[in-house]
Each structure stands twice: as C-alpha cells, then as structure tokens.
C-alpha cells in the first residue's frame, strides 16, 4: 500500500506540468470559495455592526426595513418626518439616557448630509461598541461647520478648512445647490467601515438655516437670506427624520418601544436595530448565497477538470497499468494507485488554495484597511470554514474515485495485454 502511494506520487510528478495546471485551478477555486465565504462573513459582521449600543431607532411609521435603510444606511427617503415636539417628548422620557436626532434629505456630491447635534459624536457607536474618533479636527460648532466621514474626505480630497456647498435633495438637478451658504470642514472622522464614512455631518440648525429661504423643495423667488443673517432667525428644527435612543436600562426597551408605537399625536415606529438589521440582511443576503453557490460551482468545475485530465491519461497508460498488474498488482491496487493520484492533486490543491487565501489577505490587508476601513486581521480557519474545507475534501475524494474506478475497469478488461 505504501509503495502504491509512492508510485502514485512519482507518476503525478512525472506529469507535473499538466497536473500542475489542474492543481492550480483547484487551488484558485478553493481560494475563491473560501474568500467569498470570508468576505460574506465579514460583510455580514460589518453590516450587523453598522450601529451598536443604540437601543431603539425611531421614525415615522413605515416598515422596519425601510426605517433602517434610511436612518442607518441613508438609502432612500423617509415618507414622513417626526415633529420636533414629539422628539422632545421622547428625549425627555426618564428612561432615555441619550438621544440622537437625525435630519436627512440633502446631499453633497452624492454623499448624504446628516443633520444632528453634538451628542452624535459622543453617543453614536458602531462595531463592537466603538465610538467615533476624529482623524483630524473637531466636532462642528458654528452653524456652517461640517464634519465629514473618512471616505468623503478621501474621495473628494478634503481637509479641515475647505469650503463645501450642499445640494438640496439627493443631487442630480441643477440649480438646487445651497451655494449661497457654503460650509467649512472642521473635522474628519476616522474610518469605521460603516455608512458614517460616507456621510457629511452638520448641525440641525444648519439644515434649518439653508432652508430658510426655501419652500416645498424650491428656492423662494425674490427672497434671499444671506448667510450672515441666519442667526437672527429661530433655527429650532420643525421636524427630524429619525431618532436613535439609548436607554438607561436595556430592560425597559420593550416598554419604550410600545410607548413610541402607541404615540397618540402621530404614527411612529420604534425598532430594535439588531432585529431590523437581521431582517434587512435576509433581503440583502440573497445575493451572498448566490455568490457562494457560484464559487462552489467553480470548485466543482476544477474537480471535473482534474477527473477529465486523469481519465484522458488512462488510455496512454494502459501498457503501464498492465505491467503493474503483471508483476502481481491486484485490480484493487490499480484502483488505489489512480485514486491516490487524484487525492494527491486535490489535497495539494486545497492546501495551496488555503495558503493563497492567507497570502492574498495578508497582501491586501493594508489596501482594504485604507479603502474600506475594515481591519483584516489574519485569523485562523473558523469552524464554518472548516466545514466548508471538509466538504471540499469530501467531494474531491469522491471525484478521485472516478478515475480510480475507470482504471480498475480497464485493467480488468485489458489483463496483461492491452490491445491498443
């Protein structure tokens, strides 16, 4: 038996160029599959951690998924706002430890603008209870100060002190710029790997100020309030888009949720972010299953290639197998010999694939950290990945049996004198 393995090894080595290519294709397919699984896991993790430490997200009544989409991911628009009065009542509730009002609707060159108050930089958490930190600069103070996310700064090349102009709505229409009231960048946040990186933060008063001379989504003709005079107006917001709240005790979360949902003066919705993110992921996650399925198919294609290469070589190896039989090998030995060859290739392919995965993620780590703010720490193979690898090994063992069986049948038919 040991000698059969040694022979299988020599035989594979003898045809190392053809087999090397199939080995490489198996390795790459394994890297792809494990890589997709890893990214899937990381994406899900990052997604689930895009907000943390917030007990309830509150908005006008809509679906929980919709609410999460606009309040946390700044995708889409709220159908209704929350009146300032309602916000104040909720914030004043004795069980509420902190609250972050959010006012959305404007944009800056495609990046969403978020109006809030200074408490945002203190109470907003992401990831594993991490708070926001400043790469440079400080929170906004004046009405026309702004704090931008890391990706906004990186892709537009902004530095503290730069002036920027906000656009009414999501952008795309001309003449909708708030160009009479430019903002100055006072701070840039460190990368978080969350939607915060793509957000332009201003004060609630700023949102109010830039819309003083607007009505119903358009500039009021012949009525202009220069930036210097906005402070003379009452800049208290009339409404906000959403509220994030933290409670003094998590135990009160369902009572508070019920309170908000039953709010008499206007229809509101309070959701637990963890639950809503899970629901949202089920929608987004359909794609990740498709990715995983496609990469699994790539592995199967790689294995089919191997089976085809070994089967194709069988015909030119008929003499060789007949000789091995003539010196006393059983047909079962021929089966082992050819199966072992397939197993060698697939196992080396899988090992190489795992090595490539680690090599590539190590090489790409600085790049990904820089671009997406996700720190990829080289981590050991997880239990899920172990299962995946076990499944790949299982399938490749099955695949290796095919040429083994082909050779077995052939050597039975050929005996000692194959008729070529």
């Amino acid at each position, binding site marked *: 038996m040991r000698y059969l393995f040694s022979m299988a090894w020599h035989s594979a080595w003898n045809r190392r160029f053809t087999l090397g290519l199939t080995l490489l294709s198996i390795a790459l397919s394994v890297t792809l599959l494990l890589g997709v699984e890893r990214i899937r896991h990381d994406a899900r993790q990052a997604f689930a951690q895009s907000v943390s430490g917030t007990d309830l997200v509150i908005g006008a009544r809509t679906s929980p998924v919709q609410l999460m989409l606009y309040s946390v991911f700044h995708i889409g628009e709220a159908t209704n706002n929350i009146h300032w009065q309602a916000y104040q009542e909720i914030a004043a509730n004795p069980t509420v430890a902190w609250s972050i009002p959010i006012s959305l609707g404007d944009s800056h060159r495609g990046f969403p603008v978020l109006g809030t108050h200074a408490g945002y930089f203190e109470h907003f958490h992401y990831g594993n209870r991490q708070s926001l930190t400043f790469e440079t600069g400080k929170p906004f103070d004046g009405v026309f100060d702004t704090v931008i996310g890391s990706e906004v700064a990186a892709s537009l090349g902004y530095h503290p002190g730069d002036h920027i102009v906000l656009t009414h709505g999501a952008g795309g229409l001309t003449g909708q710029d708030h160009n009479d009231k430019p903002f100055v960048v006072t701070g840039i946040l460190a990368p978080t790997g969350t939607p915060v990186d793509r957000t332009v933060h201003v004060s609630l008063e700023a949102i109010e100020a830039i819309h003083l001379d607007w009505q119903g989504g358009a500039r009021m003709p012949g009525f202009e309030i220069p930036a210097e005079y906005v402070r003379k107006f009452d800049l208290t917001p009339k409404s906000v888009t959403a509220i994030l709240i933290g409670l003094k005790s998590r135990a009160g979360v369902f009572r508070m949720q019920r309170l908000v949902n039953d709010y008499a003066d206007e229809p509101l919705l309070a959701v637990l972010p963890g639950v809503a993110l899970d629901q949202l992921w089920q929608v987004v996650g359909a794609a990740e299953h498709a990715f995983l399925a496609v990469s699994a198919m790539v592995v199967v294609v790689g294995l089919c290639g191997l089976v085809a290469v070994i089967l194709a070589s069988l015909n030119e190896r008929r003499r*060789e197998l*007949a*000789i091995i039989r*003539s*010196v006393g090998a059983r047909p079962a030995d021929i089966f082992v010999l050819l199966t072992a060859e397939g197993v060698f290739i697939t196992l080396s392919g899988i090992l190489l694939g795992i090595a490539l995965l680690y090599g590539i993620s190590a090489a790409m780590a600085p790049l990904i950290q820089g671009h997406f703010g996700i720190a990829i720490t080289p981590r050991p193979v997880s239990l899920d990945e172990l299962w995946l690898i076990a499944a790949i090994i299982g399938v490749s063992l099955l695949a290796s049996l095919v040429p083994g069986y082909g050779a077995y049948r052939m050597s039975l038919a050929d*005996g*000692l004198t194959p008729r070529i």
Partner: protein
Amino acid sequence: MASPVIDIEQLRFRYSGSASDCLHIERMQVAAGERIFLHGPSGSGKSTLLGLLGGVLTPSCGTISLLGHELTQMRATARDRLRADCVGFIFQQFNLIPYLSLLDNVLLPCRFSALRRGQACISGHHLEAEAGRLLDHLDIAPELHKRAASRLSVGQQQRVAAARALIGRPGIVIADEPTSALDADRQFAFLELLQKECSASETTLLFVSHDHRLAADFDRTIELATLNLAPTNGGAS
C-alpha cells in the same frame, strides 16, 4: 518426472461476446527447469494462453495448475499473489514504467511479493544490490541504474525487463515475443543472455514467438497451432 511446473488439462477458453472458443487444449505440461519455445502464428491465442497462466483470465472449463497450485480453485486475489510470487513476465515492448528508475523497475515484483523479496536477498545481498547484479549480468552499465527508464534503447529496455522477470527467482519466466521489437543480431544476443540467466537460477522458461529461427536453443518446441483444437482464427495457416 518431478511434478510439472505448468499442467493444463481439458482447457477451454472463450472471450465474452465471442462466438467460438479461442483456446481448446487437451493437455499441456512443462517440467521444472525446462526451456520451452511456444510457437504459433499471430492471432493463434498465444497471449491469451499467457493471460490464463498469469491468472488474469479464467478458463471457461478445464484446469490449469501452476507449481502445484490449481488456478481455477483460487480466488482472483490469490491468483494475483501467485503471479507475483511465481511468474516473471517479459512483453514485446514498453515493458518499463517510465517514471521509475531502472532499479525501481527491476525491483517492482519485490514490492508486490514478500516471497520474491526474501528470495532476492537470500544470498545475503541487499535488494538493490541484487537488482544491480542482475542488471550487470544483462549488460546494463551501472551508471544507468538510477536513470529514468524512458531514456533507454529498446534493446536495453528488454534486458531490464528480463532482470525484472528474474529477480527473486520466480520459478517461471514467461516471455511474450520479447525479441520482436529488436533487430536480428540483437534478438540472438538477448535470447542467449536470457537463457543463461534462466539456467543460472534454474528457472523454467516459456518463450513465446511466431519466429521459428529462434527455436534452436530450446529444450522443446510446442506448436500452439497443433495443440489448440479450437477452430483457428486469425493468421493460422
């Protein structure tokens, strides 16, 4: 006469899917140490007979015994073991495993048979030394021993195959047209070497060929065409 090394009785063999018998032999015996020339034209069933003797084909009826072992009474794996232990084969050409060295090619039967491994070492030799000794006797230069088999000339390959057939004193060496790929003067040289080594190790030799000119130096010639009672097919005259 001592008990025969090969004893065939009432043998009939037919390939599955074939309409008529390929072989029908009433009796064929070969004594220990005999050197037999088995002659028959191409297609007369010589290779088929060797497949039966090697235990990879099973007769439709009749008995074959090899060194006293009744092949038809044995299971396939036992026949495989008997072949490993007792028979050395040399074929027409492409006898060697291209990815193994000459020494490893010669030692191949010892990997499958503990008996031959033991007998190869009986004179106190190492396995490799014994393989080297046989290769020397068959005029293969020592510097070639560790080389890959694919680099040799046909004549050299056949001599390496002879060394493989002889290692570990298998009892019977069966050569299926081993010289037909060689040119004329090489044929006789090879035959002479093979005969010499078989006598030296007291091995029974069954030499199969369609070429009468080679028959001279053998103890006995068997004409398969007359021995085989099956309706002749192929090139029988």
